[in-house]
């Protein structure tokens, strides 16, 4: 394979350096260490610069990937990051947590000849360069010009809300983001662990938004302190709801409320947002189990298992009822969890928890499963193997089997149309059935990825602009 300049193209991607597994399970520092400039340039040189740009179509927010790679190759880093920023307000985040292997990189033309271009790693390199670069500049980015005299309320400060806020601020609208927690960022701060997404990075991305003129009101839960109706009364012309899929699911099996059994949301919130891994420097405690069972096979389950190891667990089981093929987690995360020593117990389903007289969990009884016919999700559904019960002795359990939309806003917003699982119903542009009310992210789709939520925030921002322009005034 040769480039346009007739140079041979390297088939293999430039690997990213990372902390070795034996070291990293002793700390909460980031695992992959990022590309150096030299490595980034080398990787960028592999891009074929295809005319039909399949990668752009594979990206939920349609970043002009070949263009930013071209700018990077030309050593114009500022231009490269500007191209990314045009479509993606949080590249430091997406460069780390996007499942590129299922999106832009899945359709990369280089896959026909070798490994796809490491688009995510290049994005991360540029975003980190930009972040460092900004630190050295004294002046903050100029607030959006030609401010429009209309304000938009954003409910929730996760990926959907932050993206919608950024897009609207860039268009000159005045934007206020309401957050229930004391810190903005949503799942980026309470959910995704430090070792996958350092919180200082999220903070700097949020500072960038503040620089664009976005205001933040923490400690304000919309639906309780103020209703959606109140927001309009306060003078907001439109509202975007990005409140997330906040209600953790449990299996409703005997013993699930024993002490030491957490939802992944609670476990991760204690550790990430409340910094329980630094207890007692921080006041919030978390159980540090020696034998921990994590239930589930998604990214949140991997995050929980790897966090439990870092808190000092001797042994972490990951219990998943289907086979590894059906696991929804990113392959990269599964590999890292394995490297770190997580004990995968696939085709296994918990049926009951046992506890001691003080109400603390002591074990989980499981059944072996086998794969039957495909279910509605297209995945082969697990069927219990009769008589296969066995018990794992554990002193902590983390249930990571997904979330359903938080019901507070639907319950307190008269007439807001919702779906079967309590998700807010919208059209493809993010409009709800109520005029001026838009929604996007997990509260619409149910639990999904950061980038999907960002895509929804971006789409809704366009719809909000259109709505306010048509409304005039």
């Amino acid at each position, binding site marked *: 394979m040769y480039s346009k300049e007739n140079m041979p193209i390297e088939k293999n991607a430039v690997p990213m350096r990372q902390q070795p597994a034996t070291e990293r399970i002793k700390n909460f520092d980031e695992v992959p260490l990022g590309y150096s400039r030299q490595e980034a340039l080398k990787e960028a040189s592999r891009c074929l610069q295809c005319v039909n740009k399949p990668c752009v179509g594979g990206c939920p927010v349609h970043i002009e990937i070949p263009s930013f790679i071209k700018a990077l190759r030309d050593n114009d880093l500022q231009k490269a990051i500007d191209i990314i920023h045009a479509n993606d307000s949080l590249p430091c985040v997406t460069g780390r947590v996007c499942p590129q292997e299922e999106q832009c990189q899945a359709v990369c033309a280089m896959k026909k000849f070798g490994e796809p271009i490491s688009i995510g790693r290049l994005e991360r390199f540029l975003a980190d360069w930009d972040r460092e670069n900004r630190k050295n500049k004294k002046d903050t980015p100029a607030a959006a010009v030609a401010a429009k005299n209309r304000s938009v309320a954003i409910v929730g400060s996760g990926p959907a809300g932050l993206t919608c806020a950024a897009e609207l601020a860039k268009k000159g609208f005045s934007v206020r983001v309401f957050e229930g927690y004391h810190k903005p960022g949503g799942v980026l701060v309470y959910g995704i662990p430090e070792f996958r997404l350092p919180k200082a990075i999220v903070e700097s991305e949020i500072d960038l938004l503040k620089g664009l003129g976005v205001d933040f009101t923490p*400690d*304000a839960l919309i639906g309780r302190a103020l209703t959606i109706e109140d927001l309009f009364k306060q003078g907001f012309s439109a509202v975007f709801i990005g409140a997330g899929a906040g209600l*953790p699911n*449990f299996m409703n099996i005997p013993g699930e*409320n024993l002490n030491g059994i957490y939802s992944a949301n609670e476990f991760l919130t204690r550790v990430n947002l409340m910094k329980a891994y630094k207890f007692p420097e921080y*006041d919030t*405690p978390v159980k540090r189990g020696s034998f921990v069972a994590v239930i589930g096979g998604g990214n949140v389950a991997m995050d929980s298992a790897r966090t439990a190891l870092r808190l000092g667990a001797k042994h972490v089981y990951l219990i998943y009822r289907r086979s590894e093929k059906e696991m929804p987690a990113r392959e990269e995360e599964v590999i890292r969890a394995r490297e770190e020593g997580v004990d995968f117990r696939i085709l296994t389903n918990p049926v009951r928890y046992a506890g001691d007289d003080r109400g603390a969990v002591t074990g989980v009884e499981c059944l072996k499963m086998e794969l039957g016919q495909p279910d509605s999700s297209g995945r082969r559904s697990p069927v219990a193997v009769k008589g296969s019960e066995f018990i794992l002795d554990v002193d902590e359990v983390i249930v990571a089997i997904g*979330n359903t939309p938080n019901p507070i806003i639907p319950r307190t917003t008269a007439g807001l149309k919702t779906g079967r699982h309590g998700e807010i119903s919208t059209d493809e542009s993010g409009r709800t059935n109520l005029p001026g009310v838009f929604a996007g992210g997990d509260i619409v789709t149910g639990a999904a990825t950061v980038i999907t939520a960002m895509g929804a925030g971006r789409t809704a921002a366009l719809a909000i602009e259109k709505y306010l322009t048509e409304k005039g005034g």
Partner: protein
Amino acid sequence: MFKILASRELAPKVNLMQVYAPLVSGKAEAGQFVIVRAHEKGERIPLTIADFNRQDGSITLVFQAAGKTTSMLAAMKKGDRIPDLLGPQGNPTEIKNYGNAVVIGGGIGIAPVYPLARSLREQGNKVISIVGYRSKDHVFWEDKMSSVSDRLIVSTNDGSYGRKGLVTDTLQELISGGQKIDIVFAIGPAIMMKAVSGITVPLGIKTVVSLNSLMVCGMGMCGACRVEIGGKTRFTCMDGPDFDASLVNFDLLMKRLDTYKNEECSCHKPA
């Protein structure tokens, strides 16, 4: 940041704090709570709203200086600011004209009983209030309770003030004396609420308790506050804090309240 308008000790380790929080006072109703974080490295703890004033935008919190957070709050003075305060959280108590309503408050639970009694009275109920303190030194808000009650019965554990004994003794005597009771509300330590239910539920008296589970988020996303109601898992912050006492698994509640008993900084004491 939330400015403290007044701060004082009502009784040993029992503190009152009036805080400027117009977003909370604007919507607060009896039975709701706030989540407070006292400093940058602090925990999030739930505190019941003891009173609110929509005109001046303030809320009143009464809490026991029992753990790190509540002790820090107790040390804060007028003019200081609380970094974080979220509310009103939870569902308001269902207030209507039940007829003869008995409200029972134990210790720190007396504070949230006050707005409850007031609302019940406003709805035309005959309100009998039973309040219990540890000793004479611990008595607070007797005058306030008296102003919203048709009848107020005060007891102390050691008999140093009012009647000697527990609130359940008073309740038992009231029932034995033939007092007609249409509903009972009990707020206090889990053990007290369990004991009250032990008397009223077998007699078929409708009883509502306000559960004091541990919490982190207070808005439905973590499940730290899960309780068992009628054999089903419920979240105190989303489905409560008020529950029908006949359905509550009090033993589970008490065990879960002890989850972090061994951690040095057990700042989660019910308040």
